[in-house]
């Protein structure tokens, strides 16, 4: 299953995603997609280095899927984490145009 690597930035807690050059972006849409388990393992190893270097904390991989031509988080939890609270659209990444292009069907029905 394709994965994206995420973490929180140590100093301010902001949710970040690993990019193709091994850096971290606040924008889910700039995340690199690990297409298989080998790629996920290698990306997690890079994330572990960044945790050791005290750049980020709590790094982990989560599943993504392609919907309407866009890569989106598969689970509601990750969709909310990548966008912001569904009950406060004025807050979080969604308020700055950084949300995933479209979320799982359940997302946003509130």
């Amino acid at each position, binding site marked *: 299953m394709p994965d994206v690597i995420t973490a929180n930035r*140590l100093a301010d807690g902001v949710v970040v995603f690993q990019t193709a050059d091994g850096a971290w972006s606040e924008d889910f849409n700039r995340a690199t997609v690990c297409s298989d388990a080998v790629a996920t393992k290698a990306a997690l190893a890079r994330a572990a280095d960044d945790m050791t270097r005290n750049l980020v904390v709590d790094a982990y991989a989560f599943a993504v899927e392609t919907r309407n031509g866009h890569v989106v988080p598969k689970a509601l939890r990750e969709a909310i984490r990548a966008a912001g609270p*569904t009950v406060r659209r004025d807050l979080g990444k969604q308020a700055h145009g950084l949300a995933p292009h479209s979320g799982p069907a359940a997302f946003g*029905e*509130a």
Partner: protein
Amino acid sequence: MYHYDDFDQAFVAARVAQFRDQVARRLSGELTEEQFRPHRLMNGLYLQLHSYMLRVAVPYGTLNARQMRKLADIARAYDRGYGHFTTRQNIQYNWPALKHVPDILAELAAVEMHAIQTSGNCIRNVTADHFAGVAHDEIADPRPYAEILRQWSSLHPEFSFLPRKFKIAVNGAAHDRAVIQAHDIGLQIVRDEAGELGFTVYVGGGLGRSPFIGRKVREFLPERDLLGYVEAILRVYNLEGRRDNKFKARIKILLHEKTLETLKDEIEAEFAERDATLLDLPQSEVARVAAFFAPPALEPKKPGSDRVERRKGKDARFASFFAANVTAHKQPGYVVVTVSLKPIGAPPGDASADQMDAVADLAEDYSHDEIRVSHEQNLILPHVALDDLPAVYDRLASVGLATPNAGQISDIIACPGLDYCTLATARSIPVAERIAQKFGDGAKAKAVGPLKIKISGCINACGHHHVGHIGILGLERAGEETYQITLGGSGDETAAIGQIVGPGFSSENVVGAVETLVETYMGLRTSEAETFLDAFRRVGLAPFKEALYERSAGSDI
């Protein structure tokens, strides 16, 4: 209210300096996350779904205008312009940066506040009846005892690494507004036949994945023995509570595994061994602390108010507010005003910085500088002169805080759920918002009568769903949110754990299910005076189950 002395101020200042140093060492890499985590948790700092989250203690839910303004200032300067009041009478900020937290704690210390022990495996913020000191059915104000417990438990070296968190609540009135039987220790103030003041002690209550109602371990504990007995309970728990499985680590499980009689015997044996010279509460100290909570000198007033009656006669919305949000004060001519943080269609418990400032102003102008936070996620103005009520109402209405729904079906407790919480399995707030929209705060809600709905977004039960008259537990099944409903729970002196009514409902259908339950209740109640809980206790699950699963389309899970 209590005011810090030099010792308290130095104690809190030292703690801020210590955490400032810990944060600096974490940011520089000197401390690893694993080393740092217990330190940040002991200072109320979590890492949540979107960001860090800082939980600030509001001891027993009492604060003054200056403190509320500081909470507003922090929301503006360091967060996103709002805060979230919680079921432990605390406030949470959802977006602080780690690097700013020492400054936030310093700001809090400047107004005698802190975030100590709002997280971690220690004795948490001691809670109390939010109508303390003003309730007409009060035996004694619970806050002096809550304050004594707070001082005793703050950084207590023996009890800073308990098997799991530990929650204490104190109630001082005949009616339990502090949910004491859902606490690790619940203390009910009573008087014995001789008129001496003491406590009925409950142990082992708790919600979460294994809900239990507390069991009585002492019918009457004399006031002087408060600390000695609480220490005995904690010592038995600290030594024998399980540390191998965090889900079985609370004292409720120890009680369940040992049986009540064995646990009682062990507590009494430990109590007999106490150092009475150290732990017996001196009367002078009780009096010293109690003096901080002496009622304000309220000018005598006549019991009624023509001004209020005239307004009620011409303003239905004000009349609804009076009926739902205004409670009798023990002194005639005064009332207790519940400021609902449950506007229809908005997250329960949230208040903007401007709203906090408005409540602070009102407290200064009309409530002797006192504000309370209730475990039901509302604010209270405890000492309002009846004649001032129209003015207070108008000012509350001008900032969106006059929702006339206290105690009604739209006054819902909801945990932050999957919108904010890293542990959640489903969202809570949107369900609360939709139920509130369905019933509103007008005639429909009024016709339903008192009904407590409580919603949790996972099995940890922060939304107290087990003790909701209607409880809703959000779970995740096959990637979808699903909601399990319990009925007949209660958090007052008739405490009970709700019973699961049957299979769960989808997010789409859960509000309809609640509507079916309410319609069923209204159809079978003997009169409007029979509340949902009374009716449930009379008829049991069967009619509700039948309405949900046989007469209607039933569960869709």
